[in-house]
């Protein structure tokens, strides 16, 4: 944990006077590996996932996100590594010279299929865009576990104006905890509580969000892969059957609030803002925002009020 409790980037002072010389970067060393029989030249320190993507091999992921440290808990990205007794997670395992990797062997396909079936038989994956395609690709049939399979069905938690928490959709990817904690926000409002199948995302003592340390930055929504955490605006439109991503326009802009200059992607439907995100690869935000950038756009669409000012 950062001792000051602040994101390191916020502490970097604006340089004055002569700018010190940046030490020359060492050349990245490359290593030879093989993936699915093909020779791949990967940079040392990169992961198997990165090397596979570089080689044009699509690897399914769920708990992985480019702007967070891999936690490798979903095990959807597992690959077969020659010499390893068990499969290894592509998202976090670093390449080493001479590695021979198979991403589509029988063992890999079986584990990926089972992970999909395990998840789909216990949580609602309807809001995970890639789910259907992956099921088809790996022949997953979650109904094999029967209608009595223990699951996480529960009521949606709606206890604030800004976002809802539908833990019946939670795959426990740990990303919201990472984003709330050391990887972005340093607020620590939530953790993984309980154990085993009862493990779940929770505030302290399961208190409602408004009583917790939550600052409503919404960075947890930004990283949630399955729609368990959702803008209230999106949730309500979905409930009413009005949510239509095909009709939405995404507009990149700069947040108007402060001088940091965060990139915003404003999602609009029917001429109204329905949610705000930030690009993961943006050097300032890395996808993360604060409450103002994420939620503070209602004023834009209060038409009568604006007319009053004219």
């Amino acid at each position, binding site marked *: 944990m950062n001792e000051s409790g602040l994101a390191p980037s916020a502490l970097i002072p604006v340089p004055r006077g002569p700018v010190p010389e940046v030490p020359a970067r060492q050349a990245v060393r490359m290593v030879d590996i093989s993936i699915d029989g093909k020779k791949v030249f990967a940079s040392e320190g990169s992961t198997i996932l990165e090397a596979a993507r570089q080689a044009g091999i699509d690897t399914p992921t769920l708990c992985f996100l480019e702007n967070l440290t891999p936690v*490798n808990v979903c095990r959807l990205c597992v690959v077969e590594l020659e010499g390893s007794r068990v499969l290894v997670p592509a998202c976090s395992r670093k390449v080493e010279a001479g590695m021979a990797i198979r991403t589509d062997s029988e063992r890999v396909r079986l584990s990926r299929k089972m992970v999909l079936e395990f998840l789909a038989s216990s949580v609602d994956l309807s809001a995970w865009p890639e789910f259907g395609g992956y099921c088809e690709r790996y022949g997953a049939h979650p109904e094999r*576990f029967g209608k009595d399979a223990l699951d996480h069905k529960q009521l949606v938690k709606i206890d604030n104006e800004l976002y809802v928490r539908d833990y019946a959709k939670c795959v426990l990817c740990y990303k919201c905890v990472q984003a709330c904690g050391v990887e972005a926000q340093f607020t620590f409002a939530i953790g993984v509580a309980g154990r*085993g*199948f009862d493990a779940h995302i929770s505030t302290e*003592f399961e208190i409602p969000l408004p009583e*917790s340390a939550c600052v409503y930055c919404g960075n947890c929504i930004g990283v949630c892969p399955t729609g368990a955490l959702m803008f209230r605006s999106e949730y309500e439109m979905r409930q009413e059957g009005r949510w239509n991503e095909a009709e939405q326009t995404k507009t990149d802009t700069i947040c108007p609030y402060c001088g940091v200059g965060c990139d915003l992607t404003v999602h609009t439907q029917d001429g109204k803002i329905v949610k705000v995100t930030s690009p993961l690869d943006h050097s300032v935000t890395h996808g993360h925002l604060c409450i103002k950038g994420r939620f503070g756009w209602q004023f834009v669409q209060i038409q009568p009020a604006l007319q009053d000012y004219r």
Partner: protein
Amino acid sequence: MELHLTNDRATPDEQSAVDGVLGAPKDRRVIASGNGHGAGEDALGGENRRHLLLPVLHALQARTGWLSPGALNYAAARLDVPPAEVYAVASFYDLFRLEPTPPVSLHVCDDIACKTQGADALCAQLESSLGQEGAPCMDGKATWFRSPCLGLCDQAPVALLRSAGKSPREAMVAQATAQTVLASLQNVMEDKEVPAESRPRIKEFLPQLGETQLRLLRRVGQVDPTSLREYEQTGGYAALRRAMEMGREKVVQEVVASRLLGRGGAAYPTGKKWEAVLRQLRPESVHYVVCNADESEPGTFKDRIFMKGDPFAVLEGLTIAGFAVGAKKGFLYIRGEYPESFRFMSQAVAAALGHHYLGDGILGSSFSFDVEIRRGAGAYICGEETALFNSIEGYRGEPRNKPPFPTESGLFRRPTIVNNVETLVNIPEIVLRGGAAYARIGTPQSTGYRLFCLSGHVKRPGTYEVLFGMTLRQLIELAGGVGGTGRLQAVLLGGAAGSFVSPAELDTPLTFEGVRGIGANLGSGVVMLFDDSVNLKDILARIAKFFHHESCGQCVPCRVGTIRQEEILARLTGNRTDGSTENEIALLKEVAQAMRDASICGLGQTAPNALLSAIERWRLFA
């Protein structure tokens, strides 16, 4: 860090329990602000003490019988850990209660070894006299729970009693009956001792007691485990002196030469671990050694025998390990359900400190080494080495991904060796005898001595020390033969993570290579016998429940796979299969394969082993 706290406040009692571990707070205002925002002690220049979270939670549980929101807030503020994380950690462990709970709790083992000795009937009797499991009983002053294996399988059935208060008490009830359990419960509530006849014993369950060929067990039951003098008089600490004369490189060479394989279950070469950590030694290095005494594999109780019967031998092994790899600090992580082991080991550490076998300048040299004892709190997974590190560090006991391995990045991300208790007790033998001589004992691939834990339907249950090479049949004969009906149905080898073997396989030599030949492993030395009166399907159901209960929940294959395998087994047993039996078995095998291949750690990877071994050997559902 600025912490956001709820308005729940700790009582003076709870505060004093926490302060008992952490010392009095430097600034009372830190805690007393109570408006929801308080600066933790880090802001006042305190050091990072998160690793004291587990001891703090233990102190609170022991004082009041549960962890209240106010108490957890106080712990959070004192340790400067966000309350959501304190709650996340507290809710991980079985022995911590997060809702108001009566001060006295009774944990009755209903796991597989105790099942063979009438645990189910015992629980049924307790249910009729005390009421439902988990409900308050005895005028609201007590409650009882069914428990996974308590590690006293040789004296099954067993129960653990815990009583919270200013002077908390913990006691085991061995060879329990409803009468002795209820009497013990009454006694504990009246602050009296558990009746002597129901307390655990060592000597009676060491059938080889007094035999001269014993090496590892030679002191157990023969010397006073609280007496350092008796330990010295029986050759104790000669190995540490010898090791310090030899120098660390030579000690590690001898351990490598001994070809000792770890006795905790994974059978990894001990010398390889030591070598890897020693290789990284620089003047500024911080290395750790950890003794894994979280013995929780159902049917395993050998490490308890050492901790209660020869605690200095454990310490000597750990101290030699620390010397050999350049560590100044060792940790001993004892499972929470071993109150007596904790007491004996704590006494031993204090005595060793007092006689310069621990602390600064050991034996007048420049070598300094301290040992801290930590107690688990009811989580089988914490026996996994990286989960154990997280547990010590004050995080949830979730295993880490490997690599990096502990020898590179272990406890507090430093190079660390983790060795099981029995493994460490072998170390003085290796140092004194020489690695090459040690390697000549046993078989070429399985060197040295080995302890086995015999339980279930066996005539003389207990801990046995043998040389590698003895067959399973010979070991059972050594233990007096099959008990119960006298007709053997099955043997569970290696514990819940091991395999069942059939009477036709009794001539298998109990060596690492021998049992591998029949698709089994020695694990932690469990040999549990089941006679022909046992319904193996019930035993399998209990094993499935065990893994479901003990999965940490981190990775999908284990978190969901352990549930699905339990459900499929229940459908097969109850003849409630949706499709055909063949389909269900095929599905079970696919679940098992994914758990073995894709789980993060050994728990998920081995959770289907025992089930499948039984189903395949006896075609149980054909």
